[in-house]
């Protein structure tokens, strides 16, 4: 490369995987930067997993530790399962971003710092007594202090922006630099910026110029002498896109509407981290999707129940605190036996808890958080892309069995992303709403009546007769029903029968579930790791580490939490030790212990972040050691340790 007459020799190194964390002030555009880098990597063909991490405050005080927002992307030339435990590269836009993330970096990690904000004032705000860029406190890292802001302002000066506006393009400069360093294709980002700032030409041009300047800086400067190549990952043939969990879930709901022929009715109240589903569905009215932003959580589900009674696929979306408010209405849907989807994108609790952080602590609320015996089926997606299939499956159960269904996503799935192989729309299940059209009961005198609680003998589902259907006029409600005719009944024996029947209907859903997939390649494992939801990635990565070190371990991941699949008990009985990793204090463990009388061992963290694969591997190793009575050493050459 020619640079002012000097030859800068650039070396290209092969890597199999890299974890980069972009960190800055919550106003610095780090989520956008990470998202663009992710899109570039997806288009390039790497496998990838992302972990956005941001404060609940929209604009926390500038330059402070609570205001730091970050986006971690893990990309590789092979199939990966997590966003990675520790970043290989940290891009820190200010002192607070450096300080907040330094503790997560392993020795030897690369740090790229924007030196511009390392002023005495900002250093103080971040809690630094001395400038860490001076002295040797960062000696164990590969530190690259670069004036990203200064160079950005210089690069875009031709557009005549204010200094503040010019400096705002620094995130694109950083993106350009990282894109050069890892050989990312740049076309999609240029196209994105062109579209995003189409109406403000100078901002558009400044961002594109900053992005290109960052790339060129990497290519010409002597600061960076190495660039890296991470080859595309082998994936099964098909068309892919990168997708977040909330987007995949929204598409899954639309798909369920198309495949059932039912209009979708979403009643929802905005709540982090579920609001994106409301936003997304509100864009798709052409599919017959109605979205009502209700006055509160209860009205959201109330309207969805009303729409379900009227023949729509009723949906309500929320997070933990909202689910608590919806409890009574879910009970009404249980009693009236109407199809309904209740989507809980879980976040840290209790109470307001950690709105922007992830957790799995609503399982028992979903299971039992209602008065009376009110069983509700529960399904959970295991990855961002899997939210699509989970939504379709939840709709299948709701419509087939005339029941509310709880779908438990979480903040990590909602905002995290992964490459997603597009499903063939024709292969998606067809869901038959099978509305009632005729009277179904003959009286002794020969007269025909409609009995709203006369059940299908196989599924125990009641008929769904919607207003406008002549001859099927009927009343439903929250009071106990008489079996069959559905009139109010206070009869003791009838109540006992109806309570058991509602339970039997939900239990019977297990008859429609496929056998569990047991991942036990050697067939010799004595330890089974059983999980649900977004822990799929860390569990899979932990299991791989243990196997890579030469030990046997089996893995099963549950899509259905209620009812459990029929073969779960038999599978649990096959293993000596059961490890149940969860981002709660042992809620699935409690259910397993109660139902199967097994000694499930919990592995529990509630840090608001995904479980770490390395720590999980140690916990699995410990159980393997006990089960097989051997010493377990998981240390393998770093090069071979897949993640």
């Amino acid at each position, binding site marked *: 490369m020619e640079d002012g007459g000097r030859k800068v020799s650039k070396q290209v190194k092969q890597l199999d995987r890299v974890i980069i964390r972009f960190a800055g002030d919550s106003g610095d555009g780090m989520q956008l930067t990470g998202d663009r880098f992710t899109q570039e990597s997806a*288009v390039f*063909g790497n496998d990838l997993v992302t972990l956005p991490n941001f404060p609940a405050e929209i604009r926390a005080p500038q330059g402070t530790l609570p205001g730091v927002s970050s986006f971690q992307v893990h990309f590789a030339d092979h199939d990966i399962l997590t966003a990675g435990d520790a970043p290989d590269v940290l891009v820190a836009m200010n002192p607070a971003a450096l300080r907040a993330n330094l503790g997560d970096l392993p020795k030897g990690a690369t740090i790229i710092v924007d030196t511009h904000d390392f002023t005495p004032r900002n250093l103080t705000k971040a809690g630094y007594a001395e400038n860490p860029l001076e002295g040797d406190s960062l000696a164990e890292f590969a530190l690259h202090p670069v004036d990203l802001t200064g160079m950005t302002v210089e690069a875009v000066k031709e557009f005549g922006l204010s200094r503040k506006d010019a400096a705002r393009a620094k995130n694109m400069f950083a993106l350009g630099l990282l894109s050069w360093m890892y050989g990312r294709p740049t076309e999609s980002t240029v196209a994105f910026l062109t579209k995003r700032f189409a109406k403000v030409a100078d901002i558009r041009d400044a961002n594109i110029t900053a992005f290109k300047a960052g790339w060129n800086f990497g290519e010409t400067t002597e600061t960076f002498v190495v660039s890296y190549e991470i080859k595309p990952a082998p994936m099964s043939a098909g068309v892919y896109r990168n997708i977040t969990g909330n987007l995949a879930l929204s598409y899954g709901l639309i798909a369920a509407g198309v495949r059932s022929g039912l209009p979708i009715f979403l009643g929802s109240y905005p709540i982090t981290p579920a609001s994106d589903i409301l936003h997304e569905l509100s864009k798709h009215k052409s599919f017959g*999707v109605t979205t009502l932003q209700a006055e509160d959580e209860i009205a959201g589900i109330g309207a969805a129940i009303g729409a379900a009674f009227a023949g729509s696929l009723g949906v309500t979306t929320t997070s933990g605190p909202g689910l608590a408010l919806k409890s009574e209405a879910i009970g009404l849907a249980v009693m009236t036996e109407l199809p309904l989807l209740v989507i809980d994108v879980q976040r840290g609790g209790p109470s307001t808890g950690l709105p922007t952080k992830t957790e799995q602590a609503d399982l028992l609320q979903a299971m039992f958080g209602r008065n009376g015996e009110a069983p509700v089926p529960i399904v959970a997606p295991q990855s961002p892309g899997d939210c699509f299939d989970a939504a379709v499956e939840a709709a299948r159960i709701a419509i087939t069995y005339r029941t509310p269904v709880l779908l438990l996503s979480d903040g990590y799935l909602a905002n995290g992303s992964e490459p997603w192989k597009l499903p063939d729309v024709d292969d998606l299940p067809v869901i038959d709403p099978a509305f009632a059209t005729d009277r179904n009961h003959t009286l002794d005198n020969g007269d025909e009546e409609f009995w709203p609680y006369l059940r299908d003998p196989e599924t125990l589902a009641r008929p769904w007769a919607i207003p406008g259907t002549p001859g099927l006029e009927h009343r439903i*409600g929250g009071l106990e029903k008489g079996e069959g005719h559905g009139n109010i009944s206070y009869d003791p024996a009838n109540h006992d029968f109806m309570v058991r029947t509602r339970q039997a209907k939900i239990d019977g859903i297990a008859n429609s579930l496929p056998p569990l997939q047991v991942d036990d390649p050697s067939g010799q494992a004595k330890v089974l790791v059983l999980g649900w939801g977004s822990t799929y990635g860390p569990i899979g990565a932990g299991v791989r580490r243990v196997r890579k070190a030469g030990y046997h371990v089996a893995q099963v991941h549950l899509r259905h939490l209620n009812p459990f699949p029929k073969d779960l008990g038999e599978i649990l009985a096959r293993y000596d030790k059961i490890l149940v990793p969860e981002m709660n204090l042992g809620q699935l463990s409690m259910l397993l212990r109660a139902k199967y009388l097994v000694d499930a061992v919990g592995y529990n963290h509630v840090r608001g972040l995904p479980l770490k694969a390395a720590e999980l591997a140690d916990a699995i190793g410990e159980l393997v050691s006990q089960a097989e009575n051997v010493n377990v050493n998981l240390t393998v050459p770093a090069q071979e340790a897949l993640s």
Partner: protein
Amino acid sequence: MSTTDIGTDLPLPGLRSGIELVPTNDQPQTGKEYTSDQEVRWCPGCGDYAVLKAVQGFLPELGLRRENIVFVSGIGCSSRFPYYLDTYGMHSIHGRAPSIATGIATAREDLSVWVVTGDGDALSIGGNHLIHALRRNVNMTILLFNNRIYGLTKGQYSPTSEVGKVTKSTPMGSLDHPFNPVSLALGAEGSFVARTIDSDRKHLTSVLSAAAAHRGTSFVEIYQNCPIFNDGAFDAIKNNDTKADAIIPLVHGEPITFGVQDENGVGSKGLIRDTETGGVKVALVADVSPEQLLVHNAYNPDPSTAFAISRLTDSGYLNQSPIGIFRQVERPTYDDQARAQISTARDAAPGTPQDRLAALIGGGDTWTVV
């Protein structure tokens, strides 16, 4: 002039009716067809019986297909109402009927949607849903049975009970200042707000007709006597000796007068502007010129006068109350507009849903692995 007059046209001239998209019946109907096979279980003498009879008698007059009528209720004595009507119905949970009805009315333009609620259900536990239904103007009719007491839970004070009410939960008298349901509905942007009485079947029926014909949320407060826990609460407006002085009849286009009537049907008292407060007040007709008498205009786009009239309702023991249609104005309904947005989006999107679904999920940046 009689109190059964309401004075307004059904619906407002030139406007869309609340039931114009609901299929009609080609055969005459009877009240019996609207009577379900369930035994009515209100207390003897309950005002709810009269309202049920009036509704069962009135529904055939609408001429709608029975299967296209839906009654939704919450919890309370009045909320048992749907069980006794042979239409589609849902007896839901406490206070939430307006939200459920919002879902039904928005999902289906071909249904006539009714909410039956009480003063506790609508104004206490469900107050939020009531005001938001009114502001959205969802096409439904809300019948609020106001007996100024909690009946089903056996006699606690309600949000419309007078201050000082001695009940099981307020042995030294209640401290809560009551809501005036009509004032509340007007303040919540209600487009149709009326008040009627359980025992005046003709007036009740005429108000129900106007409410059904109104496109948007029709709010009807029905004074209803609870003979067990609050008997006599409305005696002043029901007793033949006192009702002329107690009821202020609102008839669109007529001067508002009440009290002993002269040979022309003009009452001894009338409403005039109160220049001091900007509101309205009662004056002796003999003391004022005829031009000073307030002529009722239910169609007034400005709700201020309707609100001022609603304030003439006693908040303590009821010795005086305006009765009739306070307000009936046109405003676009939430559900019509929501459906219009969907039609517009649909019309702009060519292709089958299946093809559009494939295009949707394949949108954004994609790449192909071979």
